């Protein structure tokens, strides 16, 4: 009962807060006056002054995209260098050695692409400097990149007969200064209040009751956790991530973290509604996301609470924190997988097969159920395009979205955007489960091993970053494959999305009439869900059947491997 109330409070908070944040962000990005302009306006202006950005100059899609690629490339190289030279750099209090080239590559890609896949354990591998100047900075800017892309797309959809999609540098600056930074500061303060650690001191050595010396790692965790959650990054300060009491000390901090995971992505849907001057359009997408979210959550909870024939228990607590219990662990796992966050408060490897399936399915859909900040919405809009095209023909008109015709070019780009992550998940995992280098990392036999490999590449392709664990990925093979997987999953979608934005911006807007295919009603919501499940989901049915699905039926038969 108590758990049901917590769940309801979470959903209500989401539905209430998302539109408010969405409206605020719309004001920020449209350059209007808002609450924080008097407070942080000086910061925005000084960024422009120092860097020489002409904030009012609009860009076409190619210039905008070039900005994105250049900025991210430089960020990645910088982060790579920081890692392989950390011994000679300051703030390395524990004298951690230089990171291997392949792990450094993997980690640099991982944080630049907003994935935060970690093949290492944070406290034992990276210095405070790398964590702060490398990872935390990327946590901010990778999130801002996602938002910048979706802003360009939204402008492309809502403006008419223009090449102008906004200014990438301005969008980045405003996102960081007015959205990510203030929310992170607020959130850090609350977390520290709840007991999350925030210190530069040395690790503590304690003597346990058994008389054993134990090193307790510390660090400036709270500030990094705030942005890792808000920016759907997910890379933990500590290896145990949000299951670690120094990261996530109390049920209340757990509740706030879960909300932080989802709130910006959900809010952006309403920002889109403001740009489109139609709240109904925003609600249609929000409700689609909410239904898919709730459906996955319901299936997961049902799977966890039903009888496990292998362990002969229901409400399996294996791999979960007793502080949080089953419901909050599952809610966290579903939230973190739909939002491309990837931070965890329980071991996904120990989820029941169906909960694992839901988590994996969320990743495979391409992180579009709320999804990563920005990336979730643009991924969802790709599916909107496909839905509009297939179903829109049925009303007897060339398909339109927001009054703009959806034509061959958009379809080509939308298919590319769906195909890119799909290639990573299917092809890369097929390679991994065939060659010795791929199978070497497996700790589990049976179908669960396949699930672990599938999950890893789904996580990379969806830029999620969570892992089924159980798979040792700090090898040359996995570091490289995952690294390329993350790059394809990120930019294989961003590039087509930007092309669509550019092409749509040039089109005229046909006024709405009774002959228009409506994209803001229940019928459309159901259609969109149908297309997402069939096109986005069913194509993964064969590998899923051989992984978590067969595992589930085996468990019902009382068999385990």
């Amino acid at each position, binding site marked *: 009962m108590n758990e049901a109330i917590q769940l309801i409070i979470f959903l209500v908070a989401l539905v209430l807060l998302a539109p408010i944040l969405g409206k605020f962000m719309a004001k920020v990005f449209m350059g209007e006056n808002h609450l924080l302009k008097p407070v942080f306006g000086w910061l925005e202006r000084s960024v422009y002054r120092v860097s020489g950005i002409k904030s009012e100059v609009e860009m076409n899609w190619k210039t905008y995209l070039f900005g994105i690629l250049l900025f991210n490339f430089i960020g990645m190289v910088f982060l790579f260098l920081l890692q392989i030279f950390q011994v000679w750099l300051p703030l390395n209090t524990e004298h951690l050695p230089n990171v291997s080239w392949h792990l450094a590559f993997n980690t640099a890609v991982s944080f630049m692409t907003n994935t935060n896949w970690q093949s290492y354990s944070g406290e034992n591998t990276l210095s405070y400097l790398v964590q702060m100047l490398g990872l935390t900075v990327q946590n901010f800017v990778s999130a801002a990149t996602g938002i910048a892309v979706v802003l360009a797309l939204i402008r492309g959809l809502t403006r008419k007969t223009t090449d102008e999609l906004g200014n990438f540098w301005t969008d980045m600056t405003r996102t960081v200064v007015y959205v990510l930074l203030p929310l992170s500061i607020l959130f850090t303060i609350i977390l520290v209040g709840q007991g999350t650690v925030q210190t530069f001191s040395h690790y503590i050595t304690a003597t346990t009751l058994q008389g054993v010396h134990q090193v307790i790692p510390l660090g400036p965790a709270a500030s990094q956790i705030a942005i890792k959650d808000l920016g759907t990054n997910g890379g933990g300060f500590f290896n145990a991530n949000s299951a670690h009491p120094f990261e996530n000390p109390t049920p209340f901090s757990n509740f706030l973290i879960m909300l932080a995971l989802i709130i910006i992505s959900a809010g952006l849907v309403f920002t889109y509604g403001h740009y489109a001057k139609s709240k109904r359009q925003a609600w249609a997408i929000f409700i689609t996301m909410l239904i898919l979210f709730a459906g996955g959550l319901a299936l997961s909870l049902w799977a966890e609470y039903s009888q496990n024939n292998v362990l002969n228990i229901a409400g399996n607590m294996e791999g979960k924190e007793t502080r949080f219990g089953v419901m909050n662990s599952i809610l966290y796992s579903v939230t973190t997988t739909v939002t491309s966050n990837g931070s965890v408060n329980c071991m996904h490897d120990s989820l029941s097969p169906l909960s694992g399936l839901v988590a994996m399915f969320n990743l495979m859909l391409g992180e579009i159920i709320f999804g990563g900040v920005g990336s979730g919405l643009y991924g969802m809009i790709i599916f909107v395009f496909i839905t509009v095209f*297939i179903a829109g*023909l049925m009303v007897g008109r*060339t398909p339109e979205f927001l009054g703009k015709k959806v034509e061959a070019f958009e379809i080509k780009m939308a298919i590319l955007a769906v*195909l890119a992550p799909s290639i990573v998940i299917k092809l890369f995992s097929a390679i991994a489960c065939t060659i010795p280098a791929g199978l070497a990392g497996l700790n589990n036999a049976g*179908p669960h091993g396949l699930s672990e490999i599938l999950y890893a590449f789904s996580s990379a392709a969806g830029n999620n970053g969570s892992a089924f664990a159980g798979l040792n990925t700090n090898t040359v093979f996995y570091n490289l494959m995952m690294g390329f997987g993350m790059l394809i999953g990120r930019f294989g979608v961003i590039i087509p999305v930007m092309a669509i934005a550019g092409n749509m911006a040039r089109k005229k807007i046909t006024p709405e*009439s*009774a002959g228009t295919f409506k994209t803001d009603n229940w019928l459309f919501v159901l259609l969109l869900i149908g297309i997402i499940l069939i096109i986005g989901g069913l194509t*993964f049915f064969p590998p899923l059947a051989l992984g978590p699905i067969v595992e589930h039926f085996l468990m019902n038969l009382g068999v385990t491997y």
Partner: protein
Amino acid sequence: MEKRDINQLFTREIAVQAVKDSFMKLNPSVLVKNPVIFIVGIGAVMTTVVVLTDTFTGHFSNFNFQITLWLWFTVLFANFAEAIAEGRGKAQADSLRKSRTQTKARKLINNKEEMVLANDLRKGDVVVCAAGDVIPADGDVIEGIASVDESAITGESAPVIRESGGDRCAVTGGTKVISDKIKIMITSEPGNTFLDRMIALVEGAKRQKTPNEIALIILLSGLTIIFLLVVVCMPAYFSYSLTASGLPQNQNLTLPVLISLLVCLIPTTIGGLLSAIGISGMDRLLRKNVIATSGKAIEAAGDTDVLLLDKTGTITLGNRMATNFLPAEGVTVLELADAAQLSSLSDETPEGRSIVILAKEKFNIRAREVQELHASFIPFSAQTRMSGVDIKGPDGKLLQIRKGSSEAIRTFVQNNNGFYPKQIQNIVSDLARQGATPLVVAENNKVLGVIHLKDIVKGGIKQRFAELRKMGIKTVMITGDNALTAAAIAAEAGVDDFMAEATPEDKLRRIREEQANGHLVGMIGDGTNDAPALAQADVGLAMNTGTQAAREAGNMVDLDSNPTKLIEVVETGKQLLMTRGALTTFSIANDVAKYFAIIPAIASMLYVTTSGIAPLSVLNIMKLATPESAILSAVIFNALIIIALIPLALKGVKYRPISANRVLALNILIYGIGGIIVPFFGIKLIDMILGFAHLI
């Protein structure tokens, strides 16, 4: 042409030819134009190789053989669908072509007539056609006037007048001159007349893919690649699973099974029917006697949301009709009606006839024989702008009855020393204000009253416009009338907007405005001065009676020259798009059931428990007999559904004039939900038949 049986899908000859063509189309260079079916073709070739190899090595597999057979059938069925649509189009075109058998022409060379073959005529040649000659090619009359029988093209038996200059100078090759003699300048090169172009379009050889079709092919190809990826990766997952189940690697999925999985998942249904849908859309339009110059135009017709319609002929009957008699002071309405009827007895104009009819209906005044009255009829002339009768009375007095425009009658009575009352003047201006045409009647020097002539809005047109409005299409009436008249008729007909005193330039400007606001505009026109607007409009429907310039400018020609046709053209365009959408949705929805048939089948040996249970057999919700039978059933269903849907592809989905939202809800229910459910039953049924017949 209406007589042709539209419901009959195809004749024996067409079917026989289509079967032959299905095999001809196996030619890879033809097949490659349809990526989805091409993939199936490659699959079929690969399984054939497997079957042949097996046979020669003595491991013949009945299952592989049957799979191969059905894969070939899938390709052939898709080819058949296209061939049958082309056959229907060809049959339609042939009947048009009959009118173009080898005719000879009298070509004018240095003012001397010379007999040449029609096919040798070039653009710019001048030919002479006299009564009884078949016009050799499309052209413009440059000298003379003649009546022409166009029934070969239009099916309309009444001959039409064609004359040089003006808007009725265009003649079509294959029509026949009935009277008089005309000189014609040829305007088309051989093989490039309207008819030739249309024939090429329906025959499919030169058919260009339309923008929506291209987009759809991209989507279908994309889906095919995604599914190809799934299937290519399957052996890897399977190999892992075999190891995990403790099974040897030689039990991995065979090529025929993988290809079956692929063929079932890729959208073969819509892929196979796509070009048939496009061709039959063109064909349906041709059955309505509309020739489109491109498939793109038909698609654009479905997209139009603003229609510019000429008032005369489209919204109103071509002619004004008498609806009331308004007598002058001191004259009874009966006297007026009587005089009006007398004056119109020999008046063969529609207005005149309508006066006689009104007099009979209202006052039961019977028609009288003009001869008995010793009357002579005075026809309308442009100079007098009046018509009427002169009757010699019994007393020898001459009775002059005239009807005509207000101005003409005023002159007439004043010349006869009569006077033109103020009250009549008032009635006249009143009627003009209501949008009607007043016709004043006078007897010698006395004005009797006014006949109220009115534009009659076509029956049912108001409802038609209401339907269009439901579909989100705005109608704009175009008329040369003044604003008052136009407004009155617009209100009566229920159009959304009107343009009064419209010149061709106004039309062009209006189209540009609408387009700038994002609308797609359809219009009809016939005159040379309509040509710019027809060219500017997204859908320009030219009347066949119109000038060559108009016909070249538009992207469609209506052979019947019926302006209401534009509405039907829009409906055909919508139906074409709807059919594509519906079958795509159906095709994709089908995949759900196919997964449930094939996945449990191929995984039947994996992770089998000690008690012999295959865990994934739970997914076999159709309870298909054996794994082989399950896979074969899915493949057979996949092939047969193409054949089953050919009639739908040819006829198009049922069109209903309702809002987009309701159309969508209905189509999703039928083709989306239906598309998920139908294959479950279909596959189960085939599985049962296979088992019953011991085929597997």
